């Protein structure tokens, strides 16, 4: 019989043991950050919103829980039989004595492998320098020709053409049609890029595809496509899938747009903005010209005024006025003078009248003259029988001298 040891090992409670086991699991870094692949079974989603299922493969099974806040973020609907990859942490549900995976991420199986491939290619091309920032070429602000590499029947093309027409209808678009999904897509995209560069030399190229699953977008994670984008003469804008999708093509492109529509927007100026800029310029053109003309007009007016001040007409007017004033003074001076002269003339005339020899005739004197008109002053001038003419106040008559005269004593006079 075996003997009980002297110091019996302590006996664990179930709770302590379970907690001990749980601690072991939770202290293991690998078990706290693990991806597990398997098929879903016993799937249940009670009213609480948490997901309970078992992951199985051919040899084992693993109980899983996904809490509601994580389950709400699922972008697919897991069902029994779905092959999935689950990420989470292992722990123990103590009350049930069950170890289980507490899942925080769940995705359809296969994506993981693709993602690994994506990362490997990305790392390789990155190391090669294909994605270097200094390789990125600037996107021209005013593209005249825009190349588009996409499917001729896709919604992506329709969206891009619509956007280009709305924003920048001045552009010319050259479509290089290609499949964008399936095995023929990568060589098609490469050929389209090469044809655009060879035939047309566009100012910018949009490589685009609408949204889809990661498999749908896989052509844009092709190494050949990435190299063709990097080798393009024209700068390339990628617009593949949705906002959250990143492809190798995006890294190789000169500019990554989140969607095809965004790619068309990034490639072009906006017509509405152009219109605003243009209106502003026209306004400034008018304003500057008006200001210029107003200034010229002001200068002109001021010069004109100064010119008028120097006008000969003005001097003529001044001279004329002076002339008029002189004339006036002259006239008034003459009138005064005339009057005064007239006054003087009256006296002279009276004096003249007083001196008029004929005036004495009125007083009864007569003037005697010979036949020659000589006035007789002295007796010696006449001889007897001589005819003389006598002039009196109102006329004259002839007389004959009777005898020669005698001289009068001046005293008697």
């Amino acid at each position, binding site marked *: 019989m075996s003997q009980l040891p002297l110091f019996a090992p302590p006996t664990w409670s179930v709770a302590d043991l379970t907690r001990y086991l749980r601690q072991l699991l939770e202290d293991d870094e690998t078990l706290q950050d693990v991806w597990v692949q398997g098929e879903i079974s016993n799937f249940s989603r009670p009213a609480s919103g948490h997901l309970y299922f078992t992951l199985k493969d051919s040899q084992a099974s693993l109980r899983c829980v996904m809490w509601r806040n994580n389950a709400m973020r699922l972008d697919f609907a897991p069902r029994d039989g779905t092959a999935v990859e689950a990420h989470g942490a292992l722990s123990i549900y103590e009350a049930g004595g069950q170890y289980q995976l507490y899942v925080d991420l769940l995705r359809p199986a296969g994506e993981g492998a693709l993602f690994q491939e994506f990362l490997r290619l990305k790392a390789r091309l990155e190391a090669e320098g294909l994605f270097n920032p200094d390789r990125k070429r600037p996107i021209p602000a005013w593209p005249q020709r825009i190349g588009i590499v996409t499917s001729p029947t896709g919604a992506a093309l329709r969206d891009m053409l619509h956007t280009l*027409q709305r924003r920048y209808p001045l552009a010319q678009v*050259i*479509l290089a049609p290609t499949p964008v999904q399936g095995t023929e897509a990568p060589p098609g995209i490469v050929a*389209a890029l090469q044809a655009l560069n060879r*035939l047309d030399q566009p100012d910018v190229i949009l490589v685009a595809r609408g949204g889809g699953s990661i498999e749908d977008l896989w052509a844009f994670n092709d190494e050949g496509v990435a190299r063709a984008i990097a080798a393009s003469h024209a700068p390339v804008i990628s617009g593949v899938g949705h906002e959250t999708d990143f492809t190798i093509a995006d890294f190789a492109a000169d500019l990554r747009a989140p969607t095809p529509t965004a790619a068309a927007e990034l490639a072009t100026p906006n017509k509405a903005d152009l219109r605003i800029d243009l209106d502003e310029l026209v306004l*400034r053109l008018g304003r500057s010209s008006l200001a210029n003309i107003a200034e010229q007009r002001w200068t002109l007016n001021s010069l004109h005024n100064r010119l008028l001040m120097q006008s000969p007409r003005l001097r003529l007017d001044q001279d004329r006025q002076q002339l008029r004033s002189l004339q006036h003074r002259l006239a008034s001076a003459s009138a005064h003078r005339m009057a005064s002269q007239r006054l003087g003339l009256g006296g002279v005339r009276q004096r003249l009248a007083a001196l008029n020899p004929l005036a004495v005739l009125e007083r009864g004197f007569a003037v005697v003259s010979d036949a020659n008109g000589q006035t007789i002053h002295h007796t010696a001038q006449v001889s007897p029988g001589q005819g003389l003419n006598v002039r009196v106040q109102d006329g004259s008559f002839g007389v004959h001298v009777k005898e020669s005269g005698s001289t009068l004593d001046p005293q008697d006079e």
Partner: protein
Amino acid sequence: MSTKQPSPETLSYEKALAELETIVMVLEGEKRPLDEALALFERGQELARRCASLLDQAELKVQQIAGEDLIPFTPPA
């Protein structure tokens, strides 16, 4: 300004706009002789008209590569 300016009708939007911008800046800058300012203003107006009509009337021209040729593209109905 020189007389050998290209007609605005032959200019691309980008070229016409660039010239218009230059003219506005010249007019806003130093004082110019009146005849020159008027000529600049008229040229500016022609350029602005050109730009506006390009914006208004432009229809996106879409072609597609077919083999080694460019052919008109008609979107699928």
